[in-house]
Each structure stands twice: as structure tokens, then as C-alpha cells.
């Protein structure tokens, strides 16, 4: 007790001194110096003490290898630490191939590659790497959310907002506020009108009012939301990941589903979404707002939604279930030793489309290096061949079951080079509106907690994810 009183006195004195200093800012610097100098020598060891915070520094690096932003949450780490990364980057040839976790003599580097940018974080001690990776992606998502894209030019244009965001998202290397709803209350996203007004009036893009979200029991939703039109839209998007082999049999196929929501509802709505066939869902992950227990016991999604756009849930229907493959591909790609040419013939037809139309059909082929040019005719759509990237893209559009699209012709090859061993695989893109290929259906959406009647809508769409046809 006595000790603590003494401690108090100490602090009062220092407070007094400091207060007095502040009132005499200009004249006092000289006399201050002696005191400051002394304190420095006393505490020298602390300079060399490494703390065990999670993320120490962040560097943003563009595809040319320039560091265009750095942020340190603790003491400054020299940029030269990035040299180890550049070395690995050089070795990897392709930016996708850079190992996400690197080791340097004194630090560990964990990086992600998003939108042609590297987010490189410097770590000093043991930390779960996924923790850092997940956080970096969250940072990139936030930029995307704020600026519409995540590129070097937007980030440098909005440097101050970016810096403020980073400051809020991480405190001493530990994530603080990562919810978009909360961040937006503290730091407003830029828009043209506001920036004009700001320059005229000297206004700011920092929220004048203090956020409530952090402090309420529902951290993901801001308080006092008001809309004239109350609407809730849900997009059920399913992507088919499949590998189809040469003969047309499915090697593996699975469905990745996601329910994106755009909820603009006033007050504190409590929503319940139920499905016609929840048993379909093999494995799910939720936005933190969804109540796990309700799902486990009743297979309904019960949640108080964040305001605006968010991902309500993602689900996975694994290869153990039967997955419908919407199109079939008949292809033959041959390279002839003699005459250094090749032939290509591709036809696509509908397979299991559930009576819907297949749209935005596109075939992408990464040709072997030896293919110089392509001379093809398409019965439908256009094709392009990029000689430098060796990418053949055939943009078909809508699939007409009566008249199947076909692409055929010859490929001219480099002479004197042995024929490629492997035929290139075809990557298929497609879209089917108004259909969730797994058969998942939302049966109803109920709202509790608010009196008004919201407008509700659910949209389904099926896309090809990583859909690959081996040849």
C-alpha cells in the first residue's frame, strides 16, 4: 500500500513537469534536454529487447518489386529485410510460386499475393502462419471494400485512409477492428462528392461520431441503421470444381457454394433463413453473426445481419456426392511430327443443365510453348490466340443445344522442336442463371425484431469454378 502511494507521488510530479512543459513549449526545450538525456542512458537495454507481438511491419510491394507503402506497428524495421523476399521472388519466376512463408536470419516473412500486389508482413516470433495470412487477406478485402479495387494506384491515391485503416486494424501487432461495419464508422470510405466537399470546407473523412459497434454486444452491426426501403437480397452462387478426363468421365467434381447477402434493413432485424433441403450441405462455414447452435439443432440460419454486403455462409458439397456436370466437351488436339503443325477440334454440348440455358461459355487453353499460331474457325463466338502468353481463348457466349458450337482448324508449330508430350488441358467458364446446380433452395426468410415488412429476394446462379478438361 505504501509502495503504491509512493508510486502515485512519482507520477504526480512527472505529470506536473510535463504539464508545465506543455504550457511553455517554445522556451523550454533547452532545459528539458538534460532530463531527457539522462533518461536515455538509464533505459538503454530496452532498445534491444524484442517483443513477441504478432505482426511487426507490413510492406506493400508492386509487381515490379517496388515497395510503395510501409507501416510499422512497433519499432521501424529497415526495408532491406525485403531483399530476402525479392530473392525468393526472383527464384520463383511466377509470382504465384513464391513461398508464402520465408525465413531470414532475424525475421520471418509471411506474404500474400493479391491483385498483382504482395502484402509482406514481418514477424519476429512464433505465430500461427494462418493467423497472419488470414489477417493480410482481411486487409486486402478491406481495401477492396473501401476503394472498389485493391491496386497500387488506388492505395497510393488514398494513402492517408489506408494508413488510418491499418492503424485501426492492428494494435501492437494484434488485430483490433477488422469488421467492415465498424471500420466504416470510424473511417469513412472515400467518394467523389465528399472529397469535393472536404476540399471546400476542410471537412474530413474520419467519423465525427464515435463508433458504437465495437462496444455493443453485436460487434458486426452498426447501431441506428435507417432505410426508407427495407430490402434483403441473397445471392446463392455455386461453383463447380471438376476434372474431366480425356474420355469424358468425371475424375473429381465438387461444388463450392456461397451465399452473399446485401441487407439494407433498419434497426436490429433478426433474420431466420431456412432451406428446403439443408441435408445437402456437407460442410459449412458462417459469418460470425450466424448462430451455430441453431444450425446444429435445426438446420436453419438464424442471425442479426451486418449492414450492407457480406458473405453469410459458404458451403461445400464434396466429391462423394453426385455432382451434375452441365456440359460435355468433345475434343481432339493432335500435334504431327511431320510438317510441324497440329490439328484442333473442339465441340461443346449440354449435359445436365436442368433445362436451363448455359451462358457466358468460354474455353481457355494454355498451349505448349511450341505452338506459334492458330488458324481456326469457330461456328459460334470468337477466338483469340496470344502468341506471347500462349493462351487460346474461345469466347462462345450462349450455348445453343440445337446447333453445338465447334472450333476447328490447324495450329502452326515451331519447326525443329520436338512435339509437346502433353496435350494442354481446357479450362471451361460458364454461367447458368436461376439454378443452383446442387439443388439447394431457400424455402423461407423470416424477420423478427422489427415491425416493418422488408422486401426479400433470393437469386441463384451456377458457375464453373476450377473446371478442367484433360486432353
Amino acid at each position, binding site marked *: 500500500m505504501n509502495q503504491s502511494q509512493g508510486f502515485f507521488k512519482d507520477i504526480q510530479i512527472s505529470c506536473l513537469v510535463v504539464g508545465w512543459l506543455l504550457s511553455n513549449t517554445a522556451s523550454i526545450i533547452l532545459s528539458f534536454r538534460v532530463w531527457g538525456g539522462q533518461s*536515455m542512458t538509464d533505459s538503454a537495454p530496452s532498445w534491444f529487447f524484442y517483443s513477441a507481438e504478432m505482426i511487426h511491419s507490413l510492406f506493400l510491394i508492386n509487381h515490379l518489386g517496388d515497395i510503395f507503402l510501409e507501416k510499422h506497428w512497433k519499432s521501424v524495421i529497415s526495408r532491406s529485410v525485403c531483399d530476402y523476399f525479392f530473392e525468393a521472388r526472383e527464384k520463383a519466376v511466377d509470382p504465384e510460386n513464391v513461398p508464402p512463408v520465408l525465413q531470414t536470419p532475424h525475421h520471418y516473412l509471411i506474404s500474400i499475393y493479391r491483385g498483382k500486389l504482395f502484402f509482406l508482413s514481418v514477424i519476429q516470433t512464433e505465430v500461427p502462419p494462418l493467423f497472419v495470412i488470414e489477417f493480410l487477406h482481411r486487409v486486402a478485402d478491406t481495401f477492396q471494400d473501401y476503394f472498389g479495387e485493391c491496386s497500387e494506384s488506388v492505395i497510393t491515391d488514398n494513402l492517408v485512409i489506408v494508413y488510418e485503416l491499418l492503424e485501426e486494424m492492428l494494435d501492437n501487432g494484434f488485430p483490433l477492428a477488422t469488421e467492415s461495419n465498424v471500420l466504416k464508422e470510424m473511417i469513412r470510405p472515400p467518394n467523389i462528392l465528399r472529397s469535393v466537399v472536404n476540399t471546400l470546407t476542410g471537412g474530413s473523412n474520419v467519423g465525427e461520431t464515435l463508433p458504437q459497434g465495437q462496444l455493443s454486444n453485436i460487434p458486426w452491426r452498426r447501431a441506428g441503421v435507417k432505410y426508407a426501403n427495407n430490402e434483403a437480397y441473397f445471392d446463392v452462387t455455386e461453383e463447380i470444381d471438376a476434372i474431366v478426363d480425356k474420355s469424358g468421365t468425371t475424375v473429381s467434381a465438387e461444388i463450392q457454394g456461397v451465399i452473399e447477402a446485401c441487407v439494407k434493413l433498419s434497426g436490429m432485424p433478426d433474420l431466420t433463413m431456412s432451406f428446403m433441403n439443408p441435408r445437402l450441405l456437407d460442410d459449412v462455414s458462417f459469418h460470425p453473426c450466424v448462430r*451455430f447452435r441453431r444450425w446444429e439443432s435445426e438446420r436453419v440460419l438464424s442471425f442479426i445481419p451486418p449492414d450492407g454486403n457480406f458473405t453469410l455462409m459458404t458451403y461445400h458439397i464434396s466429391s462423394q456426392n453426385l455432382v451434375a456436370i452441365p456440359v460435355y466437351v468433345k475434343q481432339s488436339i493432335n500435334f504431327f511430327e511431320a510438317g510441324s503443325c497440329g490439328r484442333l477440334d473442339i465441340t461443346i454440348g449440354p449435359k445436365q443443365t436442368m433445362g436451363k440455358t448455359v451462358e457466358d461459355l468460354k474455353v481457355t487453353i494454355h498451349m505448349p510453348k511450341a505452338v506459334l499460331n492458330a488458324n481456326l474457325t469457330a461456328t459460334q463466338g470468337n477466338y483469340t490466340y496470344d502468341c506471347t502468353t500462349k493462351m487460346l481463348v474461345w469466347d462462345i457466349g450462349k450455348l445453343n443445344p440445337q446447333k453445338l458450337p465447334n472450333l476447328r482448324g490447324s495450329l502452326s508449330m515451331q519447326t525443329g522442336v520436338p512435339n509437346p508430350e502433353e496435350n494442354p488441358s481446357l479450362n471451361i467458364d460458364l454461367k447458368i442463371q436461376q439454378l443452383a446446380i446442387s439443388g439447394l433452395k431457400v424455402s423461407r426468410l423470416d424477420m423478427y425484431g422489427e415491425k416493418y415488412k422488408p422486401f426479400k429476394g433470393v437469386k441463384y446462379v451456377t458457375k464453373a469454378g476450377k473446371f478442367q478438361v484433360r486432353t
Partner: protein
Amino acid sequence: MDCSSMDAGFSSLRSEAAGAMRTVLVSAENLQLTLKPELSQEEQSLTHTNSSPKDSHKAGNEDLKEMLESSKESLKLEAMKRIVGLIAKGKSASELFPAVVKNVASKNIELKKLVYVYLVRYAEEQQDLALLSISTFQRALKDPNQFIRASALRVLSSIRVPIIVPIMMLAIKEAAADLSPYVRKTSAHAIQKLYSLDPDQKEQLIEVIEKLLKDKSTLVAGSVVMAFEEVCPDRIDLIHKNYRKLCNLLVDVEEWGQVVIISMLTRYARTQFTSPWMEGAEFDENKAFYDSDSEEKKDQTEAKPYVMDPDHRLLLRNTKPLLQSRNTAVVMAVAQLYWHLAPKHEVSIVTKSLVRLLRSHREVQYIVLQNIATMSIQRKGMFEPFIKSFYVRSTDATHIKTLKLEILTNLANEANISTILREFQTYVKSQDKAFAAATIQAIGRCATNISEVTDTCLNGLVLLLSNRDEAVVAESIVVIKKLLQTQPTQHGDIIKHMAKLFDNVTVPMARASILWLMGEYCEKVPKIAPDVLRKMAKTFTAEEDIVKLQTVNLAAKLYLTNSKQTKLLTQYILNLGKYDQNYDIRDRTRFIRQLIVPNEKSGALSKYARRMLLAPKPAPVLESAFKDRDRYQLGTLSHSLNLKATGYQELPDWPAVAPDQSVRNVEIVEPLREWAPIVGKTKQPKSDDKFYSDDEDEKEEEGSDSSGSGSEDSSSSSSSEESGSESEEESSEDSEKTSSDSGKSSSGSEKSSSESESDQKKKKKTKKAQQKKSKPTADSDSDENGNGPVGQASSSSSESSSDSESDSESDSESDSPAPKKKTEVKAKPKVAVNSKKEVSLLDLDDFSPAPTNAPKPSVLSQSLLSDLEGLSLSNISSAVQQEKKS
């Protein structure tokens, strides 16, 4: 430009010092900045105005300074924005410190924030000037607005200036007792900062941590555990009393906190509970442990079968729902927790979630695949059903491909090998040659591990020898060499085939491998081997070192077996080797010569030459690169790097005998055995019980408990009533914790199961209610009683799974309203009991108030009303109460 900005702080020095001095400074910029900034900065603050005009950058900062000193807010703001821009680009702006720090007390929030950013960045370099700002923060710490208090503490604690340690300490202590959980959270963060600034404060900080650990707010939990992990991870005793609370809060803690808490609890559990892994478990990790006291262990298990500590079970149960988190780090944390803590048969529940993560970003895939690779070595069965998820796509990044390959190889067994090999055939043809080579290695591994397919693989590899790509051929040769070693007898043909290829192969490793094979099995190819040696003699000088070494090797072996034909050739090669540039080769040559050519100096050794050189050699073992990764805890940086990272803490082994369990009791009201399952139960949905079937006792208790508090069953046995009242006591105690926290548990995911059960009913009832809207509440009351007997039935078979229960319920629902009306009369006495029960229900709800299940307030049953009684948050409850009155 960079140079000039870096040594901006030394401008004054520079103006005084000579040119030589300057070059030294420039070369040691960074060092200088940290070693003696005080001198330069003070000088600089004194002579600030005289900064060198030569420096254009400095001139730019000069007008920033003017802007900062102007009276216009907008100019100041603009200046600060540009300064932050400088900081972001890594350029120095430290000389503006005095001008910036004056604005710390600005009313403009944005300006203030930017000044904070600046302060945190430069305070360390400009310590004494930084002190000017302290009093502003001290004032702000007393602000009525919690947000201002928190942000003041945040910045104050980020100023890494040792002299303010006592001020920080005081501020932390005060903030730790703040009414606002947000401020308390900030104080937990500040603890770590202060600790890194001055480790001597440890004892005092531990006191604060101890206090904050008792905090019931979900907002604080993650941050304080983080502080605990950093300051005093060894003080496990601080956790005991908070263990159950942390487990129960876990679902509602923010994502990042969940990761930290889970990893801390993993360590905790490993020190406090006994191993749930039975005898004969094939965990290499714990072999030593089992071996050392297996005797003792056996005695124990014979005497008393393993019973899991209820607290251990509580942890497993409460982390399970987090597998559904959107945050990949959380999922991984739970997966490693199950891996390290759960009984073997339960670990597999994490599989699906891990496989799901594979759809995430490239970097996430990388880490998850690494962990799966380690897991799949020990537990093939876990991932075998998902084998197709590991099939490689041509668009995957190379390191992802290799990891998938690794996993596929680990998962290969007799049953699936043909599918896997077919898949591998596609990969071998890949355009990515590094990957194709890795595939060949993988085929080799499959061939050695599964003897049924060795021949198939070998034939396949031999076919690859005619591949056009050299890397593929070379890799095949290397792998074939290894395979032949395992069963050399019947493969003379292959060796001949490879000898034919020899001329075309240029990859040194492959050539060396062929030469070694020739030498090793020279008896099988008596004609070809000397010819190969002849060719080598011609090209010897142009070969790579490994090839030369193997040539010498081959020569020696042939000399011993077939000296008639090869004597001269050997002599020639040994002579070439003698004058080689590489000393290894000269060395080897001399050694071989002494060994095989007997002369007076060589002594007795040459007698054994044949036995030495032609000794049967053990076949190499082809094993996974992830074989030894299990020394590290899964999900850690160390595991990812396969190397012990700074600050890595070993996961402790299970204790042989469990430490005292009672340390975790917060208040000993009931004996522990009864206590814990009930608390667990309140968090636990029915479906889990079905899964965890290992603990009979516990299950029975839970069963009866659920029938008591869950269904509104009036005729439940007395024992269940007892357990109901127990849970009441416990929950009321808990409710103090939670309710003080302004009902944070309302996110509802930690609803009590009794609630969720009644929810189920509620749901159906409301549905029905909609069908017959006109019916008054009294009707739904009868509905309720109609459920009575059914509840009874289900309670009598309390062991029955949740499925069967819900079935029976839905049966009752399918009943037409007519029989229910019949029961209305009979039910009268039951209603009385029912109301008695309500008291406990009400309290239970207090314990976890959930706005979750706010149903339509149109028609509500009696039970529903009681359920909603505890809801403090939603305005519905009041509406409900009104209805109840009416």
C-alpha cells in the same frame, strides 16, 4: 533521394563535420539512427532553422512546417496528410516533430488521429519532445467518453519512451478497472507494450493480467489471453479459475481472440489432463512417453478404465462449433486442438473443415496442405475419403502441386493405388517439369511402400525412360536405381535398357546413377559394363564430379570381378583421376588404387577389397519429407518452416497422473462430477451427445438433465428435477457473470441446449400457429400439454439419439388437434407442476439471454413465454410479457 531523407536527422552534424565524417554517417545510417539519435535530434531541434538549403527534400519539409504552424485547420490537416504520406513511403519526417506535436491537442478528430500516427512512429526517436504530448493523453484518459479514453491509452502505450513507464503503469491499472469493456481491452493490449518496453514491470503486470483474466466480457478475453501468453505463459495457475469461463465464452469471442485462446488452452490441457489415447496408440510423438511408464499405465487402465476429465470434454465440446468459422486461422486452431487433445476416434471430425479450407486463397492452401501432409502420415484414414480433393490441377502453383502430391502419396494404399497411379500418369506428362519430376519420386515411394504395385511402377518408370524430356528421364533413372536396389535379382533387362540409354542422358545425377547400377550389378551385364567403362574413359575429363566419382567406382568394381577385360581401362581412369582438379576425386582415386591393386604398401586391406566394394547394400528408404514434422505443434510457424522458430514453445506431454481437478472449481457447490457436465450441457446441443458416446456416466446425466430442463415435462423423474435445480444454482452463479456484461452472450450461439430444444418446438408451434391463426393462446397452451406425454416418452429413453427424439416430437405434431383437446382436461394438474418448473427455466434464460429466437409474437405458448422472460435485449420480450398479462 533516399540517402538524403535517411540522414535528414544529421543535417546539423553534417553542416559541422567534415566530408569524411559524412561518408561514415551515410554508410551507417540505420545504425546511427538507433544508436545515437538523441544527440543529433537535440542538436537539430536547436539548430533547426539552419538546416542545409542544399537539400531539396528539406526545403519541402520547410513549407510543411509553415503549414503546420499556420492557424488554419485545413492547412494543418493537409500538411499532416502529406507527412503521413512521407511516413508511408518510408521517408523521414522526424525533423517536423516539434511542429507536429503542438497539434496533439487539436479539436479536429482527423488531425488528431494523424498526429497520433506520427507520434507513434517517431516518439522513440524523439523521446524528450514526445513527452510534450503526454499530459494531453493523461487528460484524455479521464474523458467521459470511453472511446477517447481507449484511444488515449492506445497512443500513450505506443509511445516507446522509457521515462513514461510509471505513467503507463498507472494508466493501465486504471483502465483495467474501467467500466467499459472496450477500454479494458485496450489496457490488455497496453500490457504487452509496456512489458516489451520495460520487462522489469512483469510482477505488477501479472497482477493486472490476473485481474483482467477474471473479466467476463468477450471483448476482453482474447486480448488478455494474448497478454498472458506474452508476459507470463508459464503462470498456468492463473488460468485454473478462469478455465471454464474461457471455454464457455469462446464461441462469442472475436475471431482473432479465439485463435489465441484456443492455442493457450491446448497447452493448458496438455498439462492438466491425462492422455485420452489408449494403449497401443501409434502416435510416434508419444512413444517415448508410453514406453517409459507403460507398465504403470497398464496397471492403471486395468484397474480403472480411462475416464475423461469433464473439463477436458468441455473444451473439446466448446471448440467444435468453431470448425464452422469463416476465419481459416480459427478452423486450423481447432483442428490442431483436436489433433493434440482429442481421443483418436474423434479427431476425424476436423477433416471436412480442413478440406473446405483448400478452396481458400493460395497461401491458406499452402499452410493447410502442409498440416494435412503431416496428419496424413499418421492417420491415413482421416483423409482417405477425400482423396479426390487433393487431385492436382494444371493451374495450381508449383508448391501447392508438390504438397498435394505428397499427400496423395501418403494416402496411397492397396485399395486406391491404381486410381492414384492413373492420376500420377497424367501428372508425369505435365508441362511443369519440376512437378513431373516430383511425381516420379512419388511413384517411386508408392512402389516401395506397396509391394503389390512395385512391378507395375517399375515398368511404368522404364517406359518413361523413352520420354523426350530429359528431366523426366533423369528423375526416372534415379528412382529406378533406388527401386532396383530393393529387389535387384530379376531386373537384368532394365539395367541393360538403361545402359543403352546412357549415351543420350546428360543429367549428371542420372549418369552417375546408371554407372552405379552397372558397377553394383556388373555380374548381370558382364558384356555391357566394360563397354560403358570404355566410353567413360573417353569422356572422363569432361564429366561432372559425381559422374567421375561413380566412374572410378565402376572401374574398381569391374577390376575386381573382370580384371582380364578391364585392367588397362581401370589403370587409365585411375591415372586420369590422380591428376584431377577436384581433390575429392584425387583422394578417392588414391584410395581405390591402394585398395584394389595389391602392393607392398597397401598391407592387409586389399584382401578385403572385394568384400568392401561389393558388399550388399541396404536399399534406401523412400519416405515422406513430412516424416519428422510432427515434432512441432500443428499450425505453428515452426511446423511450416520445419525448424524451431524464435519463441516457439514445445507442447508439453500429458502428465502421467492428472493434477488436482478441483483447482478449476470456482465455487464448490456440488461435487465436481455432477457439476461439470451440467455446465457443459447448457452449452451443448443434443446432437453432440450422440457423437460422444465414450462416457456413459456423463451421458446419462445429460440425458436426464435435458429431460428435466429441456422438455417441459411435468412428470419427469425426481432425479432429473434435482439435476435441474443444480443447473439452476450453477447457472444463476454464471448469470451474474454474463448479465453484468450487458448480455453479450446474446449472439445466441451459446444458447443453452434446453433452449434450443424448446426452440425446436417453438418453431413448430409457431408454424402451426400460423396455420390456425385465429386460435387463442389457450389453445397453444393445450398444445404444450399435448407434448407432455411425448416428452415423457423421450425422457424414459433418455439415451435415445436426438434424431429419434425429434421424430417422436414430430409425430406428436402430426397429431390432429382433436386428441390434444382431449388431453387438455387431463393436463390440468400438470400445468401446476409446470409453473413450478418455470422458475428454473427462467433463471436458465437469465444465464444466457438470447435475442436469437425471437419468434413472431402473435401466438405464444406458455413455455415460450417463460423462455422469453429472460430476454433483456429485444423489445419483443416486453411485447410478450404484455401478451402474457392479457
